Structure formats: C-alpha cells, structure tokens
C-alpha cells in the first residue's frame, strides 16, 4: 500500500533547492520541528526564505541556519528575543531581509493561502507603520487593511501522531501553526513522535487530514514524553 512514511529526515528534505521558501512550525519550543530544522542545516540549501513565528534563538536550530548564512529573508512576527543574537547581528549588518507581520495576520495569511483566498481585509495593524503602503478600506464603520496570502514551497512541521496517509494529531499548544502551514505549502513534511497503524487515529480527532501532508518522518518519543502515551499529564517532564 502507498505510504507517506519516509525513513529519515535526510530523505524527507533531500529535494529542497536553493532559493526555496520554507515554512517552519512552532511557537517557542512547542511544535518546533527540531530534527527537521537540524537536517535543513545539514542538507545545504541556501538563499532560503523562512516563514516562522520567530527568528531563532540561542545558537542552535533556526539560529544556526541563520548563522550559516543560508537564510536571505525571514517572515515572522517576533524576531527579537532575549537570546536572538544571531538574527540581531545579521539584521543590523543588513545581511537578512525581514518582513514583520502581526502574528494573527501571519496565521490568517497562511490560512488564506491554503484555502484559496486571494486577499482579505483585516482590522489588525490598521493605522500602524506595519500597514504603511497597504490598501485600506472602511467596511461597516471599521477600518481594515488588505492582506495577501503567504504560501511556501515546503512546510516543516512537528506533530504528535501520524498514520501512513499523513493524518496528524498534535499535542496541547504545540498545535499552533502546524495545521495552517501544512495546507499552505506545495510539500509538507511532518516529523512525528510516533506513527500508528491505519485506523488507529479517531477520524473525529484528526486535526490535519493527510491531504495536506506529503511526507511523514517518525522521530521517536521525545525524552520528556517517554513512557507517557496519549496522556493528558505526561510523566517525567523536564523543565
């Protein structure tokens, strides 16, 4: 039977070309596709446009990709963090382009790409510098800014469980950008803790239907979740 299961992260990202636009899921650590980001560093594609809520922190993951000079543009809502020194340095040196988007507009623009919406009027950002140069309109007494979809060549996301058809479930607030990014990219790669048998996911609880997922890589249970299966309160959590 056909399957979207891919044996390794290397296989899953092998075809990403230079110049690709890549969405990366996650809000803080929750939902961050750590192993896929690390593989993106190994894989070598450069001149990338990255769409993520943040712009990396510390010296690993997305920050390492930035430090390696592989990202020419980042679209995000919150690049500045206490330890975002890699991005900060590149930005001040004019070595990376930044498109700053309010978080809800970012989510809705990604959602619009997946849902075939050509553009939409949002109240968020009206009258601010982030709406400068954008079309505005008063509708029903409220002011709106016209925003356009954001799509990508690849979306790299993290989920909790998958089946071979690519159906996904998430865990708690790690859901965040995953479902909308999965629908907005030509190729969506999902890393998951575990792959389960076909029919083991409750069809009522599938959050991302497999139609939006191209490749699934099983990473194995994260250390702090080991031993805890589909539970509300995992044991052995780390700080």
């Amino acid at each position, binding site marked *: 039977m056909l399957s979207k299961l891919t044996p390794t992260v290397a296989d899953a990202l092998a075809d990403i070309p230079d110049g690709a636009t890549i969405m990366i899921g996650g*809000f*803080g*650590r*929750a*939902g961050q596709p750590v192993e896929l980001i690390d593989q993106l560093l190994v894989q070598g594609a450069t001149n990338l446009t990255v769409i993520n809520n943040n712009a990396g922190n510390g010296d690993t993951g997305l920050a390492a990709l930035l430090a390696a000079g592989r990202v020419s543009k980042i679209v995000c*809502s*919150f*690049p*500045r*963090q206490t330890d*975002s020194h890699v*991005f*900060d340095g590149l*930005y*001040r040196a004019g070595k990376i382009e*930044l498109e*700053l*988007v*309010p*978080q*809800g*507009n970012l*989510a*809705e623009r*990604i*959602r619009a790409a997946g849902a075939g919406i050509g553009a939409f009027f*949002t*109240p*968020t*950002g*009206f*009258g*601010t*510098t*982030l709406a400068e140069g954008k079309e505005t309109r008063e509708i029903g007494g409220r*002011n709106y800014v016209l925003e356009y979809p954001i799509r990508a060549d690849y979306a790299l996301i993290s989920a909790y469980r998958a089946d071979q058809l690519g159906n996904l479930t*998430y*865990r*708690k*607030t*790690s*859901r*965040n*950008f*995953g*479902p*909308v990014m999965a629908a907005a990219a030509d190729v969506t790669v999902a890393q998951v803790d575990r792959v389960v048998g076909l029919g083991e996911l409750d069809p009522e609880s599938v*959050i991302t239907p497999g139609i939006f997922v191209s490749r699934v890589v099983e990473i194995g249970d*994260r250390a*702090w979740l080991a031993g805890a299966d589909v539970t*509300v*309160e*995992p*044991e052995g*959590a*780390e*700080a």
Partner: protein
Amino acid sequence: MTGINRTELAARIAADIPVGAYVNLGIGAPTLVADHLPAERNITLHTENGMLGMGPAAEGDEIDPDLINAGKIPVTELPGASYFHHADSFGMMRGGHLDVCVLGAFQVSVGGDLANWHTGAPDAIPAVGGAMDLAIGAKSVWVMMDLLTREGVSKLVEACSYPLTGVGCVNRVYTDRAVFAVGRNGASVIEAFGDTTLDELRELTGLALTE
C-alpha cells in the same frame, strides 16, 4: 499624593472582570491579574498560542514543554480546556469573542490609541508578535500601566509619540493613580486611588480630564 501598588492594581482590574468572562491577559504585569480570579468567578483564560481554559503556571512535575502560554512560560490545563490552531485562535480574538483583554502599554491616547510594541528608537529591532492582534482582540481592551514613566512623564497622552499598535482600540486605562475611560469622548476619570484628586491627575497628565 498616593496610589496603589501593582498587586492592588491587578486586584482592582480583576474585580472589574465580569463573572463568566473570557479573558486574555497580556505578557508582563497583566498576568498578575490571574492571581485575583478565584475559580468561583468562572473566568476562562485564553492564550493566543491556541488554548482556552489555561490554568496557573506549571511547577515541578507539571511542566510540559508542549503546554506553554504566549510568554512561552509552562502553564497548566483546567477541566473544560480546549486547543485550537493559530488561525482559529487569532480569529477568536479578531472576531470579538473575548470579553476582556488586558495589556501593558508605553502610551495610551485620550482617544484610545495604543502604543505598546515599539519605542520608535531607530536602531531597535522591530518585533510585534500578537500585540496588534490583541489591541483589537476583545470586546473590551484595557491597559494596565503606571501613570507616569520613571522620569515622571505621563503615559496617558493627547496623542501617542511612539509608533501605534492600534487606533482607538483601548476602552479603559488602569494605572497606579487612577482608572480612566478613553475613547471617542476623550479621557475621563472613573476612579482615583487614595487621596489623588482630579486636579492632580490633570496636572500630572497635562490633559483636560473629565469626571
């Protein structure tokens, strides 16, 4: 001339939140409001990274890296909680479903303009996060802030000098000296704390405040 401290202010804000309300508490001082919302008031907390029914900060074994709030602090889940994705979460805000949102601010204008995302410093790295979404993200948007900067300059202003987060979006401003209503009709004093008088507030802010 007296005022109230931050804990008292958080309690004062909490007292104004209606029973059964859905509330988003912004990062920073507004999170203190949660300490004054006892379970019997049935307030449901929203965190914009995709959850309703957020409980207190997680401690010890409760800490779960998959369960964090908008400030990326580990939190807990209350019975009756639900999770949803980012577009749904911000749609919930933009669609006016939350009753109250409490935010910090650099400045608020008498017309309700909010400035809380950027100091305007030319070399600052801009970062907006959910600030502009929160600014228009509830039926009532309240600001919690000190009335004056450390330099003694009023943060309630005729017109914001810092870059705006939202236009005419704030309804009330809770400060250590007084609670103000702001909006189309300008700024008025709802309650002055301690022995603070209307005249003092007018002098401190330089604004033609009404009662």
